[in-house]
């Protein structure tokens, strides 16, 4: 089927691959401007405190310091969600987590800026702090935000169908608490922003602002900058250079991005701020620690009768994407299986820790871990094969789920079938040597949210295409390449539609001065939405070219095929007897160009063509030139807004969850468990993913493997460890992102369900696979050693504890006496992060500088 295309479906190197492999490509921190200053941020040492006084005078006097910015320099609140404007770029009256932003120094070098940070005097009044979400919900006084009683950011209570009746009809019910601990994106590129003002020629004062930033959402950044700096949006230009990975961590406006602009305005010079790795961990916005109390009922034949979930998310100190996260957790209980009755109670709770936000598989991952593990337990109870129980609960699309999600293309059955056959599931499961096992799980994800976070009727993506006389196709898109292949996808769709080569297409992306509004790279929306917009823009331009070519070739436009750099006449199509075969446009057609007679040079392609008369084919270039003679440079615009039918139900919170299309995934993991050490090794994961159509199989496979790998990290090793609001492992070694040695072989299996609305049938492929990996590993551990793990990651300690509990042996406290988080062994991470104040006690052997910075302890 895909042979029908010349570019779509062919493995294609990314169009920016050479920039990346040669080191020539520029990321934000690689940029510099003449006179550029370096910014450093002073962070709060306390999890919850009132700021009584900030004295920056000594810092300002330090030679080389140009400006010191504090909260009052730009006091407007902001936040990524319109309902969550609860952050200030720099703290105004309160700090709410260790690492909160207090002040910023812009100086001529990083060393001077660091020195100046230590000279800032801040007086704090400590407040009681909340670290556990369930404790935090009981708070009566000293709330984290005054307008959030009980430190509750938001709660939702949804009932679909009749859950009570569903449970009454069930033959078997399972009920348990699952905990998924907190993880973070840890993208390889630390956040970085460079901000620069121009002088306005008319007023002579600071005028337009240009910001280069590592962002997934240039348009939202432009919007929030405008809000905080009180500048009109058209005076702000946001440019996204190469971005070194996002995974959601750059999908909202991080305070650093605004602080750089505030500092640049105050210093009247360009300012660049790049986070240290430790600061990236404090900036966070990752996946919250989630407590899931889950109850599922099934009939003896495996049919699910009802699901009830109570979900509590430890959201950290600010709203961030929190309201959306807690809604996704409930909404995406639907649209994977046919579940007739759902009850969902979701609580997004504020605590004095860095804010959690969107991370790959936003909102669905932790609940999916609980659900798929519980489904496996129920399958074992009623004696149905885990693959079989999933097959018995399939949706029958096209359909609308009980919670209002529209499902059209649905490749889940094929995903299950293919993973089962490729992994040798039926022959091998339960028959592997002791300590080795297979586990299965499924997942799904949205191909973009059907409702934008900013409520409006604006299209979610718009793309412009320009073709001038050189025959070069320039595509202008606001979609943000962050490594996932967005630019390549755009180029492929444009080239396929126009039937030209990929090398003819140049993509200009994510520059708010040049590119139309696109709401950015998040919720896996780019291929579906920006892809559709590109397809429409290219089709519009194609129409102009076709009209000119048809005229020249003496046939109707419907007889033309654009392919391989040629415009061809379909074999057997009639030649129209056109009176005038010249390229001269009618007055209406010449509307744009105001064409002047004699403009075409003698001997040009047109002229030659005119003399030769109609032919059966033209090169793409000839056709373009012919069309340009009618119109001047060819331009086309295409946009995409999700259809009304896909925008969900009417209940409160119904806006989150609906998507024009869902991707589907089924996975089988093969693991072994060392019963002496508790160590789990993942040997192989078979991962089938329904991406609608694989526009670029290399990229699709890369996204599937990457998702599975990141899911494995969360399943086995990755976890943010907190002690009284202090992060114990803010480094890439301590956070334990898996290296090549620990990483399994992943066999990606592409399933193409050809979505009726996706561009060439395509859907998302970058997030949906992640959620299945964690429960697939959990279920494989059960197959291997017979234990059910309800808390991720499945560290050796947790595996051993479960193994001992199974044998009814006394539990071992392996970390007794060596617990790095025990207060008497506490080691302050004070090296890179600029704290001010006494902070926690130092360990006696702490090697970091002992001297109290000038300014004294509070």
């Amino acid at each position: 089927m895909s042979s029908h295309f010349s570019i779509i479906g062919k493995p294609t190197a990314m169009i920016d691959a050479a920039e990346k492999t040669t080191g020539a490509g520029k990321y934000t921190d690689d940029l510099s401007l003449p006179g550029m200053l370096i910014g450093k941020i002073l962070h709060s040492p306390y999890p919850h405190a009132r700021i009584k006084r900030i004295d920056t005078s000594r810092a300002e006097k330090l030679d080389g310091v140009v400006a010191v910015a504090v909260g009052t320099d730009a006091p407007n609140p902001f936040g990524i969600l319109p309902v969550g404007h609860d952050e200030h770029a720099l703290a105004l009256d309160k700090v709410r987590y260790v690492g909160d932003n207090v002040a910023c120094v812009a100086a001529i070098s990083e060393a001077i800026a660091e020195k100046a940070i230590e000279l800032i005097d801040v007086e704090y009044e400590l407040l009681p702090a909340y670290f556990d979400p369930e404790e935090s919900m009981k708070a009566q006084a000293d709330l984290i935000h005054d307008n959030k009683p009980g430190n509750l950011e938001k709660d939702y209570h949804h009932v679909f169908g009749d859950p009570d009746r569903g449970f009454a009809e069930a033959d078997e019910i399972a009920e348990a608490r699952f905990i998924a601990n907190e993880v973070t994106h840890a993208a390889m590129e630390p956040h970085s922003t460079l901000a620069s003002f121009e002088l306005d020629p008319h007023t002579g004062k600071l005028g337009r602002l240009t910001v280069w930033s590592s962002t997934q959402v240039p348009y939202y950044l432009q919007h929030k900058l405008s809000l905080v700096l009180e500048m009109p949006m058209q005076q702000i230009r946001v440019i996204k250079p190469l971005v070194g990975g996002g995974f959601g961590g750059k999908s909202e406006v991080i305070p650093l991005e605004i602080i750089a602009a505030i500092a640049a305005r105050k210093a009247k010079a360009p300012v660049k701020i790049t986070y240290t790795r430790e600061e990236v961990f404090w900036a966070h916005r990752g996946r919250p620690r989630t407590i899931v109390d889950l109850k599922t009922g099934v009939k003896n034949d495996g049919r699910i009768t009802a699901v009830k979930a109570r979900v509590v998310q430890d959201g950290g100190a600010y709203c961030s994407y929190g309201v959306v996260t807690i809604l996704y957790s409930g909404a995406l209980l639907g649209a994977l299986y046919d579940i007739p009755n759902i009850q969902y109670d979701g609580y997004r709770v504020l605590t004095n820790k860095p804010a959690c936000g969107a991370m790959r598989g936003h909102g669905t991952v932790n609940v999916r871990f609980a659900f798929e593990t519980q489904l496996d337990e129920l399958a074992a109870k009623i004696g149905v094969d885990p693959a079989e129980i999933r097959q018995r609960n399939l949706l029958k699309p096209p359909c609308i789920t009980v919670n209002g999600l529209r499902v059209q293309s649905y490749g889940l059955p094929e995903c299950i079938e293919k993973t089962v056959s490729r992994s040798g599931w039926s022959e091998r499961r339960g028959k592997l040597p002791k300590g080795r096992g297979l586990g299965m799980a499924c997942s799904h994800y949205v191909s973009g949210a059907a409702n934008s976070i900013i409520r409006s009727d604006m299209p979610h993506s718009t793309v412009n295409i320009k073709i001038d006389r050189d025959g070069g196709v320039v595509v202008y898109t606001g979609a943000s390449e962050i490594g996932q292949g967005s630019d390549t996808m755009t180029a492929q769709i444009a080239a396929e539609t126009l039937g030209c080569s990929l090398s003819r297409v140049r993509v200009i992306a994510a520059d708010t001065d040049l590119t139309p509004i696109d709401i950015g790279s998040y919720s896996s929306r780019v291929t579906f939405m920006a892809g559709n917009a590109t397809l429409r823009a290219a089709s519009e331009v194609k129409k102009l070219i076709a009209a000119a070519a048809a005229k020249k070739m003496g046939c109707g436009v419907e007889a033309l095929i654009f392919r391989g750099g040629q415009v061809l006449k379909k074999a057997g199509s009639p030649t129209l007897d056109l009176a005038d075969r010249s390229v001269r446009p009618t007055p209406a057609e010449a509307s744009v160009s105001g064409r002047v007679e004699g403009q075409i040079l003698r001997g040009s392609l047109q002229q030659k063509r005119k003399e030769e008369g109609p032919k059966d084919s033209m090169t793409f270039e000839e056709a373009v030139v012919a069309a340009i003679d009618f119109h001047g440079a060819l331009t086309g615009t295409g946009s995409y807004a999700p259809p009304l039918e896909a925008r969900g139900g009417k209940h409160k919170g119904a806006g989150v969850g609906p998507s024009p299309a869902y991707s589907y995934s089924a996975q089988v993991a093969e693991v072994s468990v060392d019963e002496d050490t508790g160590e789990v090794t993942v040997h192989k994961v078979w991962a089938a993913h329904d991406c609608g159509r694989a526009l670029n199989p290399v990229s699709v496979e890369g996204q599937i493997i990457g998702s599975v790998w990141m899911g494995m990290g969360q399943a086995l090793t990755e976890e943010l460890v907190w002690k009284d609001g202090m992060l114990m492992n803010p480094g890439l070694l301590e956070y334990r992102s898996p290296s090549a040695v620990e990483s399994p072989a992943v066999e990606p299996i592409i399933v193409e369900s050809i979505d009726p609305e996706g561009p060439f049938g395509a859907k998302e492929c970058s997030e949906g696979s992640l959620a299945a990996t964690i429960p697939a590993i959990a279920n494989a551990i059960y197959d291997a050693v017979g234990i059910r793990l309800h808390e991720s990651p499945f560290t050796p300690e947790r595996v051993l504890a479960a193994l001992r509990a199974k044998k009814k042996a006394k539990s071992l406290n392996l970390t007794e006496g060596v617990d790095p988080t025990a207060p008497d062994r506490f080691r302050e991470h004070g090296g890179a992060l600029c704290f001010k104040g006494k902070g926690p006690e130092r360990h006696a052997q702490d090697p970091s500088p002992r001297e109290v910075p000038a300014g004294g302890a509070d």
Partner: protein
Amino acid sequence: MKKELISLRVNGRTHELAIEPSALLLDALRLDLQLTGSKRGCDDSSCGACTVQVDGVAMMSCTLLAASCEGQEITTIEGVSEHGSLAAIQKAYGDWGGAQCGYCTPGFIMTVKSLLAENPDPTENDIRAALSSNLCRCTGYNQMYEAIRSAIAAEREGMAAK
């Protein structure tokens, strides 16, 4: 701290630089020589994005003093493309999806070049062990193995053709 004059040999060219004795090689490359291909992903040699070759050995330039590299031959990612065309490993990383966001890619390519110089026919385990000094958050490493195998094959073919 007072700056000192050192001469640093990078990608076959000698540069005179005035740097503080405490300056790191990564900063000398990125800030003084504008060779921004080597990246900073952490500050404590845990990620490998800053990997360069010093006398042919893969080293992390974020924890190496620039002054200590005087008299040594430093190769950065910018020195890898041969005669204006992509080296086999660079081409293969592009073709096989070994690079996604690309931030870790220069470091990985320097590590792979050191591996292949030492061991032209590595097993998958050799490759995994060598790559474990570098972190990637995008690819899950699988497609890098394919890229490396294909680069080895391409180099061989090239040799045979000569």
